[in-house]
């Protein structure tokens, strides 16, 4: 086996383990889906008439406007504590056990990261399905649904660094949890709840630099209008930049810890 095949093989088997760890704790599902679901259900009722404001571009259902942001929020929730697993393994000595196996160090990180794609994709898919049941539309059909899951999974892996970096650098659960919490406003400072036109000036600037916005806009376009390369590729590029930055730091921090 060449090194790359070996890395894939090792990551796959370690990934199966982290996936089991995820699936066997029902609390994981609940903690990820609870807030996006509550926001979807409550806000779509509470602010039902907000769509009458100019700027919503003729959208008649606030639920339909709200759903894309909550799908993205679900993907974010799915990975916001992702660094915890590695941290606990560091503390219990399990990481040492893995380090003493004749495998690549990167397979250890791969085994943590790769499953996050599927976790984020499937959790976002569940929220998307619920949105559709509640009456949101899916203009781009089944293909669009799958594409949204892919984008959400990609965002999950890209954004996971935001949890791994503090976990690897501070080795403290508290610090990791706090920083995850501080990143939630990324969703509020995007077009998740209201269109850009209704935001105060400073928020519009933040919004323009917020990668979550581009993910939300792509999902919204796929749901309400149809398929458009320009919108999707914008999202892909912004996720790629986010991922490149966060993962580069994560790799460095992991190497520092496990090298």
């Amino acid at each position, binding site marked *: 086996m060449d090194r790359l095949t070996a890395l894939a093989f090792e990551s796959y088997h370690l990934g199966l383990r982290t996936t089991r*760890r995820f699936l066997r704790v029902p609390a994981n599902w609940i903690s990820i889906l609870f807030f996006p679901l509550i926001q979807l259900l409550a806000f779509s009722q509470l602010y039902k008439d907000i769509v009458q404001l100019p700027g919503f571009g003729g959208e008649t259902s606030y639920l339909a406007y709200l759903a894309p942001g909550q799908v993205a929020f679900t993907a974010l929730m799915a990975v916001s504590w992702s660094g915890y697993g590695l941290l606990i393994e560091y503390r219990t*000595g399990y990481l040492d056990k893995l380090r003493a196996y004749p495998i690549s160090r990167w397979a250890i990180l791969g085994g943590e990261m790769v499953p996050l794609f599927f976790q984020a994709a499937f959790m976002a898919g569940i929220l998307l399905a619920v949105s559709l049941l509640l009456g949101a539309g899916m203009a781009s059909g089944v293909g669009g649904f799958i594409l949204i899951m892919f984008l959400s999974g990609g965002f999950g892996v890209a954004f996971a660094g935001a949890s791994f970096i503090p976990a690897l650098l501070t080795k403290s659960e508290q610090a990791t949890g706090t920083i995850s919490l501080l990143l939630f406003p990324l969703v509020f400072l995007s077009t998740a709840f209201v269109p850009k036109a209704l935001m105060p000036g400073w928020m519009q600037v933040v919004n323009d630099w917020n990668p979550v916005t581009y993910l939300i806009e792509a999902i919204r376009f796929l749901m309400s209008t149809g398929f458009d390369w320009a919108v999707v590729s914008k999202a892909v590029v912004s996720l790629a930049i986010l991922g490149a930055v966060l993962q580069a730091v994560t790799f460095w921090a992991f190497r520092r810890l496990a090298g």
Partner: protein
Amino acid sequence: MLGSRAVPAIETDGLTKVYGGDTKALDGITFRVDGGELFGLLGPNGAGKTTAIRILSTLLRPTAGSARVLGLDVVADPRQVRLRLGLALQTPALDAFSTGRETLELAGRMHGMKMLDIRRRTDELLELMGLSKVATKLTGTYSGGMKRRLDLASALVHCPDLLILDEPTEGLDPQSRSTLWEELERINAAGTTMLLTTHYMEEADRLCSRLAIIDSGSIVVEGGPEELKHAIGADTVVLQLDGGGPGADGGDPVEHVRDLLDGMVPRDDVVAHPAGVSLSVPNAGGAVPDLLRRLEVNGLRVTGLQVRQPSLDDVFLKHTGRSIREESADQPILLGW
């Protein structure tokens, strides 16, 4: 399983580890373990045992000196060392959300074994460790003893040439401990070379064919348990005296016994003991009747007598001036990467 006995299983030369510039965890230890041995590193907490283990298992780089495992340099050739090494660390490192079987299968996968071999070996080890019944339960539900045995099994899946165990029975109740001892002896008898650390003298005494006593990062003395105890050269005789000692004149019982036994036992070999007075006497079995007669004739009544052969604790005491049981609070919190 180690084919050639010519290549030592472990060979270290002046192995040194300094943490954070000034904490010397290992101060140049040199020792050798041959194929088939069950070798022990015995020492109090904080003596440097875990640091030595971590270097030998490629988890930590030495500051100076060298270590070869199965003829391979741990710094230059870590991957080859890892392939042939089985390791169980001080706290059983298990994934709480994997079952016992999954744990062993993953260990096999990580060592590049074929699935057919993994299945066979997993069944074998689960049976051997008495875990067959709980093989499909999550390890998070296991008792301490079961976790230990599973962790040990996961270090054995790939039939390692050398098994390294850090404090294998730490935190176990006496029954689980003796069960594990038997298992370790069986594994060693089947041909696996073993290095273990312990701060339990009974454990080192019972299990190890040879051991090195380590204190403050240095090897104090090395040899077989019997050999080490013999080298002490004397048994311990504890005398319990009537009313705690000479009552009337209120003198120091130790001084009194020293005076009475002058010429029979060197004065320095008589020391105080919680139960009375302790003497260090070569071949106590033959000497005690004469000693008692001398004391009796001089009016000192001995109400109790205990004769003890030297233990490894006495060996440790002799070489370090301290008891191995004394706790110290000088361990580094994180043993580094």
